[in-house]
Every structure is written in structure tokens, then in C-alpha cells.
């Protein structure tokens, strides 16, 4: 045993404590996961997915926003290639999550990292990275335990909710406004991130671009507008940095 290693029972206790702390932090997110899962199930059934297909997508992809995107584009008869490109683009933010988690967990056991990758949902990332910043020196196994605790407390309900949604399917009453619940979900997902001039500029260009390019086939306008928005954000950010640097120099 090296000096840095905790005694094994103390380590086991730390890991267990981290797991339960994660589970407690993750549990309230069921309040968002369940309605979103129901929504996904209903939308999939409406689009003509049978129960097996809806559940395969729910379990294998485990990413609601991009799954809804894929279904929406499929119903517009877009070619599968475009469907995959756009739906995967919705998940690109997770490459950023992965990069930001890597320094904390990439020395952990492979199966746990694979599980963490499979389970990488927005709130698991957000809660975990916040915890790692408070406890940067926690053992890798404890950090992974926190993450998996968040997921085990809030992801199984996703499968159940998708299943129920797919069963209810088209019988869902219109008065619940489910046609628009997906929009509400997307808006609430990105809204808190819109802070500072570069992000506002990126948002405006992406939004206006998407409306102006709505004539493009297979929702290609979405990808083009998002790319223009990203470029705008990066350029504004750099311009602001330059200005700050030149003011410092004076």
C-alpha cells in the first residue's frame, strides 16, 4: 500500500458515502425525467414506433433530446444519414462533458468509465462536476461512485416512463399539450446557459438563421444555423478577449 492509499475499509466507506450522496442529489431529477420520458414514449408511438422500437431507442440511445430530434426528422421523411447527423449534433455537448470529466475519472476502472459514458445525461454531468470541484482530492473510485449514484437514482425511471408513454401513445389527451412539451423541454435546457454577450450572440444567430433557412430540405437549416451560431459565439468571445487585452496593455 502506498502512502496515498486510504486503508481499504476507509476507502470502501468513502465510496459508499459518495454513492449515496450522489443518489440523494440525483433523485429530485426524476421530476423532470419522468414527464420527459412519457413525452418521448408518446411521440415515438405517434410517429409509428412499436413498443420494441421505442424501448430499444430509449435504452440504447438514452438521450431524450436527440432521440426526439431523430423521430421528428424521420417523420419529415429525411434520409437516415441526415437524421443521424443532426441527432448526433444535438449530443455533441456531451463531448464537452466527457472532456471536462476526464481529469477526474479517466484513471478509474474501464467498466465503470464505460457505464459512466452510457449513462452520461445532462444532470449527471452537472451534479458530478459540481461535486468534484468541492472535493477535488476525493479518490477516483469515490468520484465514479457519486456519478453512478446520481444515475441509478434518476435513470431507471426514464425507462419506465418511456414504456408507459409508448403504451399510452396516441390516447394521450390533447389538452395536455404534448405536441409542444418537447419545445418546452428544449427551451428550459438551453435557457440557463445563455449568459454573457458571446452566448447571446450565438443564440440570436442560430435562432434567426434557423428561421431564415427553414426552407432547406430535411431540416439542414438547423445544422447550418447552429454552425453559424457557434462561429459567431467564438468570434465574439475572441474579440472581447482582444479588447480586454489591449485595454490592459494601455
Amino acid at each position, binding site marked *: 500500500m502506498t502512502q496515498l492509499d486510504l486503508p481499504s475499509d476507509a476507502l470502501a466507506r468513502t465510496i459508499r458515502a459518495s454513492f449515496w450522496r450522489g443518489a440523494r442529489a440525483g433523485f429530485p431529477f426524476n*421530476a423532470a425525467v419522468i414527464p420527459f420520458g412519457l413525452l418521448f414514449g408518446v411521440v415515438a408511438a405517434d410517429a*409509428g414506433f412499436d413498443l420494441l*422500437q421505442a424501448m430499444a*431507442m430509449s435504452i440504447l*440511445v438514452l*438521450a431524450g*433530446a*436527440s432521440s426526439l430530434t*431523430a423521430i421528428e426528422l*424521420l*417523420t419529415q421523411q429525411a434520409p*437516415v444519414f441526415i437524421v*443521424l447527423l443532426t*441527432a*448526433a449534433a444535438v*449530443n*455533441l*455537448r*456531451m*463531448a*464537452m462533458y*466527457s*472532456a471536462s*470529466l*476526464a481529469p477526474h*475519472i*479517466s484513471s478509474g476502472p474501464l467498466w465503470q*468509465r*464505460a457505464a459512466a*459514458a*452510457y449513462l*452520461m445525461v445532462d*444532470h449527471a454531468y452537472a451534479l458530478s462536476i459540481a461535486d468534484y470541484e468541492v472535493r477535488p482530492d476525493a479518490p477516483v473510485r469515490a468520484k465514479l461512485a457519486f456519478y453512478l449514484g446520481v444515475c441509478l437514482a434518476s435513470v431507471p425511471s426514464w425507462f419506465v416512463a418511456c414504456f408507459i408513454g409508448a403504451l399510452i401513445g396516441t390516447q394521450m389527451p390533447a*389538452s395536455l*399539450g404534448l*405536441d409542444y412539451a418537447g*419545445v*418546452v423541454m*428544449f*427551451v*428550459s*435546457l*438551453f*435557457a*440557463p446557459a445563455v449568459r454573457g454577450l458571446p452566448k447571446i450572440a*450565438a443564440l440570436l*444567430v*442560430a*435562432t434567426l438563421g*434557423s428561421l431564415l433557412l*427553414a426552407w432547406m430540405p430535411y431540416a439542414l*437549416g*438547423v445544422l447550418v*444555423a*447552429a*454552425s453559424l*451560431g*457557434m462561429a459567431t*459565439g*467564438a468570434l465574439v468571445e475572441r474579440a472581447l478577449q482582444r479588447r480586454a487585452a489591449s485595454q490592459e496593455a494601455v
Partner: protein
Amino acid sequence: MTISTFDIWLTIIGLAIATFLIRFSFIGILGGRQMPPWLLTALRYVPVTILPALVAPAIMWPEATGGSFDPMRAAVAILTFALAWQLRNPMLGFLGGLLCLIIFINAGGVLGL
């Protein structure tokens, strides 16, 4: 029009693989290796561009009204944005937005709008 079974399965499997690879990229394959700065910068703008670009047409031209602008649905989107932004909390924004949506839709029906 119905979607072909083949297209559905191709989408499910393709998206499952692509999504796992994106998620596994740094914690699994690349380790703690540094990304080029321009890529890191671009990725930070993914959430505030791809999602708004996706919903903007659905807000302006909702499917449920046959593609004509609906002030009620636009108001729900704006309220949801304001709520989630102010509270800095996606979950509360979503639940609040859903509540607005249900109230607005049912009030609209009652008032005959």
C-alpha cells in the same frame, strides 16, 4: 406517411453507437488529453445554438396549429425561457413551462380562443 422499419432500426442503432462514442470519447479513449482550443471553444457553444435552432421553427410555426403562428404557444416558450434563465434551473423551467402550457391550452378551450 409511415417510416420504414428499416429506417427506424438503422436510426436507433446508428444513433446509439454515435452517442456512446461521443460520451466515451474523453473519459474512455482519449483520456485527459488536451483538445485543440478552437474545438473546446466551439463545443461550449453547442447547447446555446443547436437547441435554439431546433426549436425556433416549431415556436414560430407550430405543427398543432397547422404551421400558423400561435401567440399562446409563443408566450409559453418565452415564459419557459424566462423562468429557466432566472432560476438557472432547467428542471424548474421545464415543470413551470409545462404548467403554463396546460393552463393556457385549457383556458384557450374554455374561452373559445
